[in-house]
């Protein structure tokens, strides 16, 4: 497995509805506008859910690990995991390696460590789903 490259993530922001999204080369997923501009984000996020596949798609070796990560409010990326399978809420470093997002464990920032918050809040973080 190749080491994650240090390419910063290329997020886009929609001029029409202000949605921030990945990847950068597509129209806005919310309103369809093509008036989108680059919007730099930190190269870290946290795991929403992760899985280890015993039979990945052709071209990938087993075991193959994938993580769905949140990199900015409401912006998510599916990334190949380098290293151990993350648990939900784990902080990740995310990089773009060619056309592939790669994630590896990261040390939590002070805010992500939840300083001053209860242990439960630190573990759970903000909710991943909007209210129904």
């Amino acid at each position, binding site marked *: 497995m190749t080491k994650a490259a240090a390419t910063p993530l290329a997020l886009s922001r929609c001029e029409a509805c202000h949605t921030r999204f990945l990847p950068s080369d597509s129209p806005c997923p919310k309103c369809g506008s093509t008036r989108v501009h680059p919007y730099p984000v930190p190269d870290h996020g946290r795991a929403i*859910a992760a899985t280890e596949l*015993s039979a990945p798609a052709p071209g990938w070796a087993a075991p193959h690990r994938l993580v769905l990560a949140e990199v900015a409010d409401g912006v998510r990326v599916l990334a*190949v995991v380098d290293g151990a399978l993350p648990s939900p809420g784990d902080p990740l470093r995310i990089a773009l390696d060619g056309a592939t997002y790669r994630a590896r464990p990261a040390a939590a920032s002070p805010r992500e460590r939840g300083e001053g918050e209860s242990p439960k809040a630190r573990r759970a973080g903000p909710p991943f*789903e909007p209210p129904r």
Partner: protein
Amino acid sequence: MSVHVASVGVGRFGKRTEGLVELAAEAGGLALEGVGRKPIDLLVVGSMLAHGGSGREPLLPRLASRLSLEASSGVRVESTSATGAMAFHVAADALATGRFERALVVAAEKMTDRTTPEVTGELAGALHPSEAAHGATMPALAALVSQRYLERHGLPLAAIDRPSVHARAMATRNPNAMFTAPVSAAEVAASRPVATPLRLLHCAAIADGAAAVVLERGEGAAAVLGLGQGFESMRIVDRPDLTTFAATRIAAQRAYEMAHLTRKELGVVELHDAFAPFPMIHLEDIGACGPGEGASWYEKGWVAPDGRLPVNPSGGLIGRGHPIAASGLAGIAEVALQLRGEAGPRAVAKAPKVGLAHAVGGLASHNFVTILGSDAP
């Protein structure tokens, strides 16, 4: 003028020696016999996977020729694992125009003539290319949904074993099911990992099979009351909530509106359980229960044939096997059998007046809801 299911034909699902056309002809022939070989003026067929060295087999003309339907018009449809439901909806809508009197709907898939990696690779074509390019497969994305569902609702891992146990128990009463032996929760939990937390017995199996119905104008116990479909982004990264399928909620709402019914009137449902945790989510998305409550429905046995709302008396995809295109129509066929009093030993305890069949396309990016019931005044 209403449209109703006049007969059902389902062949045995599993590893079959016959090819695609033969499987389709078997199910279609059974459905035609059910209406005494009355004339058919519309043939709608569906299958997903390519066949033969040159890609798609010309299933529509071959089946029309095989079943001597020269005087019929024909349509072939495809929408991955919802193909069978789409075929049914297309036929029902066509009959409702008045141009056609009686339609034969057939959905078939031949899968066991290729290797599992080949099938898995082809099915990953139903995912968004940007996600498939990361090595994602259908079970992989289903695993992410499953993990999030468990985590969000604080459910134990064992919650996802129950739908498999239920499906296999139901299938023991279905002679056309691929799996005729029940499984225990311990066996499910000990089966080999596919995509954590999903194991082999959490996933519907690759199978050959075909299902068919004859739809005709007129009234009956299995009349088409409601049809609905919905889309959601193919990319799971675009979905704000992994623990619900918007495409099902839209489809169900449309079907209930067309039928002028609510979920309270349902007496039986067939839900698309390609992966064991999914029918818990589907129960919530069709409005049978609130978020996170689908798991307790399985735990309390409310999905049993004598429960609050019988779910998948046919065995579902996990019990029947999952010949992709055929599954969506097999669910509709089962609801029709239950409503028509033709389900034999699988008949649910309280004879239903209204039933719902649900089908998922791709990773729930294109879903269908079909409501059948008596339209007698």
